[in-house]
């Protein structure tokens, strides 16, 4: 199934590439772009390319669709080998990994500080791509999180949408128990081999694995402790349907097996693809940690575009990104409506699409909510070792849900992390 979809996407990308090349006049600049997710990043970049081609008919685009892990692997291999010809002109990099690439491959990416006005973007996105005062890359989507829930299941259990406003994780668990008692559905799903949930809750508590200076901050990290405790409690309370891997995770809430899921806004497209569930969904702010400084908003993932310094089409690529992603407000309305992509260009949020009510979510103005929450996401330093820490956390997850004391788990995470980050 996966193989087939992958092939058909590959084929479609190849055909699209051929089509674009055939339409291009001679001596045209062709910009090659690597990214993942055919329904999101690839589709959005195709839209951006079409818009740019209208004013610059000599520029064509070759958008290559890989799996995310493959983009990272190919990028890293090519950067390490130093062969520019193996690299694209523009590449998509997830925010968590941005500093890792910028710092470990200095000179590989083109600084864009003097060409792009970064003051219009969400500050946390710009910070992620800044090294020694220079800004690299074009901020793209945000992963602002929300609590996506099944209106019908919660109603059946006697809860109204306002019952989900401003709740704590303990309250979420109580609601979950009631929902299962009434509907027989688990409240949520989680893949315990994936560190996403820990990151969401931790960032909502205004902290990360690292402090503002990028130093390891695991021991004594109240937000991390809260994140681990909340997950242990949820598993113990039996409100979680365990998922094995991403597809299983997505299937749990798209098939109606669970009543809610806490994740990034980019999942909207996937949820809305279940057209038969229209009107049955709602969005609420995520539950809050019971610690000072915690908010009901967080972030998961999100990525940005980077131009390779050795690219032959460097100037064209930067001009393209600048023209569309930093200036075209209408573009942001379109990708929001069609793909559920919440961009990080602040001015875009005054547009029409952000004000609209969505019948799929029972007529709520979901986009306005998401952009409100986006403004509240605590800015933290993702550092350069997020994957290492994620691994240390998931490696100890089984012990945690098995009943090991949270403080001992944190100690184990800290020990493993210290050895890994060098």
């Amino acid at each position, binding site marked *: 199934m*996966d*193989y087939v979809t992958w092939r058909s996407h590959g084929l479609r990308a190849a055909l699209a590439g051929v089509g674009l090349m055939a339409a291009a006049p001679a001596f045209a600049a062709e910009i090659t772009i690597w990214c993942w997710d055919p329904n999101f990043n690839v589709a959005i970049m195709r839209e951006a390319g079409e818009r740019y081609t209208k004013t610059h008919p000599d520029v064509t685009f070759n958008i290559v669709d890989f799996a995310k*892990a493959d983009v*990272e*692997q190919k990028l*890293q291999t090519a*950067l*390490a080998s130093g062969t520019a010809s193996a690299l694209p002109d523009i590449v998509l990099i997830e925010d968590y990994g941005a500093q*890792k*690439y910028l*710092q*470990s*491959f*200095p000179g590989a990416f083109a600084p864009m500080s003097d060409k792009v006005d970064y003051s219009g973007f969400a500050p946390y996105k710009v910070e992620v791509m800044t090294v020694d005062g220079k800004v690299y890359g074009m901020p793209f989507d945000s992963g602002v999180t929300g609590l996506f829930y099944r209106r019908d299941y919660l109603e059946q259990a006697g809860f109204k949408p306002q019952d989900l406003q401003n709740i704590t994780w303990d309250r979420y668990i109580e609601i979950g128990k009631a929902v299962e008692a009434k509907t027989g559905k688990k409240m949520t799903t989680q893949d*315990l*081999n*994936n560190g996403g949930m820990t990151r969401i809750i931790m960032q909502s508590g205004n902290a990360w694995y690292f402090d503002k200076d990028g130093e390891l901050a695991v021991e004594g990290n109240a937000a991390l402790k809260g994140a681990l405790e909340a997950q242990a409690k949820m598993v113990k309370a039996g409100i979680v*349907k*365990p998922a*094995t*891997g*991403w597809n*299983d995770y997505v299937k749990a809430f798209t098939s109606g097996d669970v009543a809610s899921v806490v994740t990034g806004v980019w999942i909207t497209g996937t949820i809305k693809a279940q057209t038969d569930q229209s009107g049955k969904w709602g969005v609420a702010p995520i539950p809050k940690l019971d610690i000072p400084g915690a908010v009901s908003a967080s972030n998961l993932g999100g990525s940005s575009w980077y131009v390779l310094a050795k690219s032959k089409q460097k100037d064209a690529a930067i001009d393209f990104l600048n023209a569309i992603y930093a200036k075209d407000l209408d573009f942001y309305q379109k990708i929001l409506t069609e793909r559920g992509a919440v961009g990080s260009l602040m001015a875009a949020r005054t547009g029409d699409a952000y004000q609209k009510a969505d019948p799929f979510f029972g007529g709520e103005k979901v986009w306005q909510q998401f952009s409100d929450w986006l403004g509240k996401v605590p800015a933290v330093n993702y550092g*350069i*070792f997020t*994957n*290492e820490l994620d*691994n240390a956390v*998931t*490696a*100890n*997850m*089984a*012990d945690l849900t098995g009943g090991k004391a949270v403080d001992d788990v944190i100690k184990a995470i800290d*020990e*493993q992390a210290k*050895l*890994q*980050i*060098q």
Partner: protein
Amino acid sequence: MAMAKSGGLKRYYNVNGWLFVAPALALIGLFMIYPILNSLMLSAYSGRGMMMRFAGFGNLVRLYNDPIFWKALSNTIVFFIIQVPIMIVLALLIANALNNPRLRFSGLFRTAIFLPCVSSLVAYSILFKSMFAVDGVVNRTFMALGLMEQPISWLTDPFWAKVLVIIAITWRWTGYNMIFYLAALQNLDRSVDEAARIDGVPSWGRFLFLTIPMLKSVILFTTITSTIGTLQLFDEVYSLTEGTGGPSNETLTLSLYIYNLTFRFMPNFGYAATVSYVIVVLVALLSFLQFYAVRERK
């Protein structure tokens, strides 16, 4: 005069001989020897991405102190110590059964058992993942048959995750090894077996004391290739666990760790090269041991 002539001829053959093998040698040198030497040199460096500096034995010290490396090593060893014997014995038994001339549809059975090993590593891993999901077909079948009360969480329980990996690679590779045994069995002289049968040796005795000793060299070959294969185990665990080697690093293998060190974590090519040399040393050592164990005693 004659001496000079034969010397000239020898020289002629020498030069021509070397010219013939030169392209192959050059390619081997470029694509085998050079990378091997280069990676050995790389293992003496350490650093983030391209910011590498000479570290001498620093990577070995880090290796010694790295609990994840030891975890990956012990997982890898557990995989091959348990999986390789199971698979070899299974393959031998199946090969022997399929070699029975009175068996009907043996071609069909042979194909069926060999088929898994022409399937793509990634495709079958993904299939196994869905079959062994908590509400997957395996759990549901076992529960419907009343064999268990609670579904097994194959991919999130540390013990069952290892079992699943072993089941998966056994399914994939048993047929492959069986083919070698079948080929070898067909080369064996039937009269030896018939003579033993006339002497009244039971079938298990003929299998154990005649067939197996005669297959010794093939068994050695398959054991070595299986050991090397299991030491390099990557695709299955990567696909089953989405690259994490979870739960709790219980299915992390050395190869997956090397991949993570290079591509998922802050890239440290030097340290990753050091870990890969551990596999080289292990493969050399185990191959030597296996050769030694079945050597011809004079």
